């Protein structure tokens, strides 16, 4: 594995988006992962629609009846991948723009640009997470966002942080040495793309520590899913 890796430097990550006052983080995590997978499959970065999932995806996890995708009321990335496999795929952001509230579904199958070939759940193992990131592109992950409301920058590594996952984000890379002035040392970290706009965090991104001493900080390693895409040609 490379010591440092960042999919932003390879063109697989779209612009930072803003979910607004709507609990649709799960759809941004899902679209970000598919944008990356589609880039790997086709060499082209397409900015994909979250609104399609907000409006049209009501897939439920059969083993947990309360865990259904439900627009601004929340959802899960894995069930969203399942929806995308069933529905055929995602339209572009331009075709189906984000409005930040749930509307009636206007999905147009003829405008699909990215399709899910397969998706998997990655084990709670940092090396495997890094390997899947490098091989398959950005990963959809869950995190405990308790420290994110007040986050401005730097490598977050709270002494204590819950592992209950309440926020869906996108893992786009990792670094081996983020200097932390207070501890006078370097600290390895994950690079996470959020969906709260560029005026939050480090231009929309969050860094959280990784490595043996930070194992699964804020539950960041607990729910990681990878997706592969197939190339869709427009007729």
């Amino acid at each position, binding site marked *: 594995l490379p010591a440092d890796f960042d999919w932003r430097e390879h063109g697989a990550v779209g612009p930072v988006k803003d979910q607004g006052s709507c609990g649709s983080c799960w759809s941004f995590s899902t679209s970000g992962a598919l944008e990356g997978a589609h880039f790997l499959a086709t060499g082209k970065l397409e900015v994909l629609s979250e609104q399609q999932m907000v409006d049209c995806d009501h897939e439920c996890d059969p083993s947990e009846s309360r865990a259904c995708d439900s627009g601004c009321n929340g959802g899960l990335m894995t069930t969203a991948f399942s929806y995308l496999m069933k529905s055929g795929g995602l339209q572009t952001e331009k075709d189906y723009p984000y409005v930040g509230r749930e509307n009636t579904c206007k999905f147009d199958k003829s405008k699909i640009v990215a399709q899910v070939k397969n998706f998997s759940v990655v084990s709670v193992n940092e090396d495997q997470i890094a390997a899947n990131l490098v091989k398959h592109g950005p990963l959809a992950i869950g995190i405990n966002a308790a420290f994110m409301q007040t*986050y401005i920058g730097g490598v977050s590594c709270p002494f204590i942080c819950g592992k209950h996952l309440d926020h869906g984000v996108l893992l786009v890379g990792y670094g081996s040495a983020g200097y932390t002035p207070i501890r006078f040392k370097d600290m390895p970290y994950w690079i996470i793309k959020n969906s709260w706009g560029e005026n939050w965090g480090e231009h929309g991104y969050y860094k959280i520590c990784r490595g043996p001493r930070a194992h699964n900080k804020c539950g960041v390693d607990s729910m990681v899913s990878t997706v592969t895409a197939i190339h869709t040609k427009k007729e």
Partner: protein
Amino acid sequence: SSSASAEREEEEDPLIEQVVGGDDDELMSELEAEAHFASFERRFGKAYGDAGERAYRMSVFSANLRRARRHQRLDPTAEHGVTKFSDLTPAEFRDRFLGLRGGGRPNLAGSRDAPILPTDG
């Protein structure tokens, strides 16, 4: 009742309350709090419906400044402070901006574990 609600939500944050001492040395005067809040309003283009709503949001903002200081102590390698969410209670923040259901259980039928990849070399 709004102020009491904000205080109650602060008390519901057990992780932080367990380890942080008093903030007496960091208490702001009303004037300082007003200046901070006015700066926050300008920076993030905030506008409130009436004076009552603004006063409530200012009380939430002050509580969040104290919370940010506690976060800074608990998370010293990051920088914590005023963000565009500083006028929201933790419950409002959860309701409006978080949305991962089921605690993130990935037990979807049909999904499968990713194959183990080699990580050396």
